[in-house]
């Protein structure tokens, strides 16, 4: 079970992803040459660089066509450190590509927002932002653990500066807390990587090699899985390791909050998706009930805490805990709908919560306060902000017709039908309470800021400026576009998701042992030579469903016209097994 098919491996190397990842770094390097007080030029240059990166990512999404049997495209695989078996291996599947585009979209937006919000050390701010972008893109494209780890750590540094230098009053506390939490996870992840390196016998960090071999013995998966899981759970963040988030979000400058919520949190989920669950499938499946429980607790807990907040930014921060709970529930449910929903919800959350933080930034820039009690009646004072805020609130509250609904609907309906987790229906039911609470805290926030009598402190605020409309507009358009017509996104996510669920299920020995006639042979002799050289021969895989993304797979719809339907007979034992 390996999506890195011979066709994939023999495909020519593409430099596009490297261009994508290193463009922001080059831009950042060039920015260092600018005189520090040329703020206008610096801003413009940073914006242009980020727009070029966006353009490159759009080229990627248009030209995305994975090799036969694989879902990865734009492969670049170069021997890098043969001594340790690290390979410079980049490539993206549908999920990674969507997150890449989310990243490249949000970066110019926050750079544009920073034009008026950041007036101090502009050059350094822009450099941090571009380095951060490179780190995120690199981590999303990495298909080698060492490469991933390097980019993962690269994200940390600029984010630390963003919070610590341009943050609010308690920025030092928040920045240190953020770094300590993340580094604690990183250290564990590094150890787990080494453990895998030796335990698999692959002596390689390349995902193509690691996934080409059988998963390590289930008993030995626990240590690395827990280490990975903790590192990623901190990033997501899952309750109870989430307390760095409200502080980091609240103290970070607007751009930092947007990127943190929009992309960085997804790195945790993405880590589960790309590394932790496929590499340690047995442990992942055994831990799924616990993770699902934590996710659901996060949904409700985050929503309850959001409701109690008096600081608008903190409220949005806690709403992220709740929303990411939904995403994690969908991911660990390991049901195609649920995982597709989780992947989509990552995008949705990036757009909606990104927009929420931008709106908080708009307000803060005008009032220099985040306290809900300092606002009121803005619908009358600044109608355009109020309308933008309303649409964003509705998107975040998952109103049908908006993007959030599609994601939540798929996550919850999928996890309801999940087979791997006991009492999942009850858990899904509890998570559905989060839908109610989500409406509650968002509408509370909306009422306190926009409705009611006009608060004197905000009676003379100015409404949206053209530049502000420019950077909010793409997000609003996407809310409706994904909500009404999610098909183009879903069709790019689903094949990758199916490969992911198949990877976890087929590589897992629990199921392989329980299913006679499974396509995975147990104890298959290792095809991979012990030393990671270029002659890696991955195990040929059974052809996965729907490898070609651009080709629309016709679906048999269930014909209502034939009453004595086959559905009426009880599920056969065979069907049970297949599931």
């Amino acid at each position: 079970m390996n999506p890195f098919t011979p066709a994939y491996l023999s495909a020519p190397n593409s430099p596009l992803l490297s261009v994508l990842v290193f463009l922001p770094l080059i831009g950042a390097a060039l920015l260092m040459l600018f005189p520090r007080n040329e703020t206008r030029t610096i801003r413009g240059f940073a914006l242009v660089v980020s727009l070029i990166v966006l353009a490159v990512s759009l080229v990627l999404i248009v030209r995305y066509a994975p090799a036969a049997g694989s879902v990865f495209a734009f492969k670049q695989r170069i021997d890098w450190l043969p001594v340790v078996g690290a390979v410079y291996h980049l490539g993206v599947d549908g999920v990674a590509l969507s997150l890449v585009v989310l990243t490249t979209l949000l970066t110019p937006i926050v750079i544009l927002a920073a034009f008026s919000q950041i007036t101090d050390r502009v050059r350094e701010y822009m450099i941090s932002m571009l380095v951060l972008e490179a780190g995120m893109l690199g981590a999303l494209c990495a298909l080698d653990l060492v490469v991933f780890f390097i980019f993962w750590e690269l994200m940390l540094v600029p984010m630390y500066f963003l919070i610590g230098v341009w943050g609010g009053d308690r920025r030092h506390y928040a920045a240190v807390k953020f770094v300590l939490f993340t580094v604690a996870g990183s250290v564990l992840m590094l150890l787990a990587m080494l453990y895998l390196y030796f335990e698999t016998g692959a002596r390689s960090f390349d995902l193509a090699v690691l996934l080409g071999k059988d998963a390590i013995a289930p008993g030995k998966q626990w240590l690395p899985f827990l280490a990975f899981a903790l590192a990623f759970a901190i990033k997501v963040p899952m309750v109870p390791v989430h307390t760095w988030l409200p502080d980091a979000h609240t103290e970070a400058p607007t751009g930092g909050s947007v990127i943190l919520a929009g992309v960085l949190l997804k790195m945790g989920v993405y880590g589960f998706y790309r590394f932790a669950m496929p590499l340690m499938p047995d442990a992942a499946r055994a831990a799924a009930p616990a993770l699902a429980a934590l996710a659901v607790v996060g949904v409700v807990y985050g929503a309850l805490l959001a409701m109690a907040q008096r600081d608008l930014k903190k409220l949005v921060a806690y709403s992220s805990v709740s929303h990411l709970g939904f995403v994690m529930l969908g991911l660990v449910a390991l049901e195609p709908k649920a995982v597709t929903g989780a992947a989509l919800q990552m995008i949705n959350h990036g757009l909606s919560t990104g927009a929420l933080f931008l709106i908080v930034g708009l307000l803060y820039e005008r009032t220099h306060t985040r306290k809900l009690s300092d606002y009121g009646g803005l619908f009358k004072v600044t109608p355009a902000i109020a309308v933008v805020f309303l649409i964003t609130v509705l998107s975040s509250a998952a109103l049908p017709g908006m993007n959030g609904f599609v994601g939540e609907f798929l996550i919850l309906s999928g996890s309801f039908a999940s087979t791997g987790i006991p009492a999942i229906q009850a858990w899904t039911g509890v998570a559905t309470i989060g839908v109610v609470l989500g409406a509650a805290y968002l509408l509370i926030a909306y009422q306190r800021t926009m409705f009611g009598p006009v608060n004197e402190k905000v009676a003379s605020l100015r409404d949206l400026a053209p530049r502000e409309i420019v950077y909010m507009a793409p997000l609003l358009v996407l809310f409706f576009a994904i909500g009404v017509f999610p098909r183009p996104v879903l069709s790019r996510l689903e094949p990758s998701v199916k490969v992911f669920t198949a990877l976890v299920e087929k590589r897992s020995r629990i199921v392989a042992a329980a299913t006679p006639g499974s396509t995975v042979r147990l104890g298959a002799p290792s095809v991979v030579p012990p030393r990671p050289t270029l002659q890696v021969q991955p195990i040929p895989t059974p052809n996965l469903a729907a490898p070609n993304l651009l080709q629309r797979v016709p679906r048999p719809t269930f014909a209502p016209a034939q009453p004595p339907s086959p559905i009426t007979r009880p599920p056969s034992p065979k069907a049970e097994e297949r599931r």
Partner: protein
Amino acid sequence: MRSNALLFAIPLLPLAGAVWNAVFGRRLARETVAFVGCGVVGIAFALALVAFVGVAGGRGDVVHVAPGFSWIVAGNFAIEVRLLFDNLSSVMTLVVTGVSFLIHVYSVGYMAHDAGFARYFTYLNLFVFAMLMLVLGDSLPVMFVGWEGVGLCSYLLIGFWFEDDAKASAGKKAFITNRVGDAGFLLAIFYIGWVFAQAAPDRSFSLSYGELKANAAALAPHATVIALLLFVGAIGKSAQLPLYFWLPDAMAGPTPVSALIHAATMVTAGVYMVARLGFLYALSPVASSVVAGVGAVTAFFAATIAVTQTDIKKVLAFSTVSQLGFMFLGVGVMAYSAGIFHLMTHAFFKACLFLGAGSVIHAMSGEQDIRKMGGLWSKVPRTAKTFFVATLAIAGLPFLSGWVSKDEILDAAFHSTLPGAKIFFGVALATAGLTAFYMFRLFFIVFTGKPSHEAEHAHESPPSMTVPLIVLAALSVVGGGFFPGLLPIGKFLGEAHPPSFSESLPPMLMALGVGAAGFFVAYKLYWGGPSPTALRLATAWEKVATASREQWYVDHALGRFVPRVVMVTGFMLWRLVDFFLIDVVILGGASAFAHGIGHLARLAQNGQVQRYATTFIIGIAVLLLFFLRCRS
């Protein structure tokens, strides 16, 4: 089955109107805004009428699937945007577009001086779009789009005058309470998806009604749970016990909104849903019985509150809750056509009553307290007469629309074999008496007697308001005649008890008796204003009267106390778990521990070279000893 793309024009026209007024409304003249806002709904009504003639003429249902447009496609879901125009939805569409059109016209006069004129028509058009999606959507997920969409518009319109915090809060309360119901609706969809996935793992489902019906056998073992989950949604949307408490507060919105959304259309969505999924409820006598029981109990409960209210709109609000209970009793005992029929006649007379109340409030310059009214009959003659006709209809004067439809429901309950149906009939009968009482109490207090000081200067409303009143009053009178046209709905849904006019004199006579009694008591106590007897009774029974006025404290418990508990829980969790337990105790502990280790380590590095040298020598000695021991 026919397909016609024009079907999409019916909901999309109001949407286009909403978009138009949202984008340009603030720069356009009020006449243009009003013309567009009313016009799109009027055209939609005309289109619906044409389509209705086709369906009623036996040319078959119209189903249309948006071409090349799949909405949510993933896993085993392939949800399309499909519209269905059949017997049931055609009636609903006519009611929705027709009543909406009248209320749009009425609003032109009512809202003429409001600063948010364009915003108002934007919301109202958006509501019509969402309601039509709810009614016409041919699958549960598409219905849910409309279902939440109407909730959103309700939220926006209740809080239309958002500068008043109480009104904004009422909107929020409505939306969140509705969401509790929506969660049930969603879980029902998930449950159905799960059942289907188990039964046929390799197929995709659009969850259209036809598909559900064709696979009713697979759903049968789970019908009770699914039907009850869906009913949770209906309870929220249609303001039944225990989630009714948002509706009285929703009267904070402009009165035409109360008439359209909170009386005639949106709140009846739950009834429509049960009727639409009648085949599912028919599989579960338990669920049907619960529907009927909740309906009957809510009808009685709300009527006992309506008798003591002093706000003209609140009386009508509780009356709406009560009448919705009647409808649920009807569809609960599987008399779907009777339930839908009462939905329709109620839309006529209750819209007429609400718009009449709006006209009265308009005449009284915003006063809503009926104790300050009185003697308005001569001051606002057209309003008064139409209000009187509608009162007669809801109270059940023979041959008026309300009498016919209520009688059908009582008759069906009387003859039903469902568990508990006889009790529900008794409760509903008592409610019918209470209905006549509280409606005539309202009418006599407001319109009879000597004009009060405040009512001295009341003036009749402009024609744009009175003409819709007259049309609705006329419909309240003749609406009963539409019933035979609705019978195909029952046939379509496979009704258990085919309704008929003749066979049941007993329930009809009983209903007439209690109705007459209610009228008589109201006449004795309230003709020409509250009589001394009425005041004496109110004093003697003060505690009961207060409890009734306070909704038997249900709102206090569920609508106010529960949210507070949730808020306090959130706050406690934040301070105790997030802050104290995790940050202070655990992280603080870990940090103190690290600090302690650091402190110990620092002791060793005190900068004294002699100490370092000593340690070094001791270390070497220990190692040497160790290796020597190993050798030997």
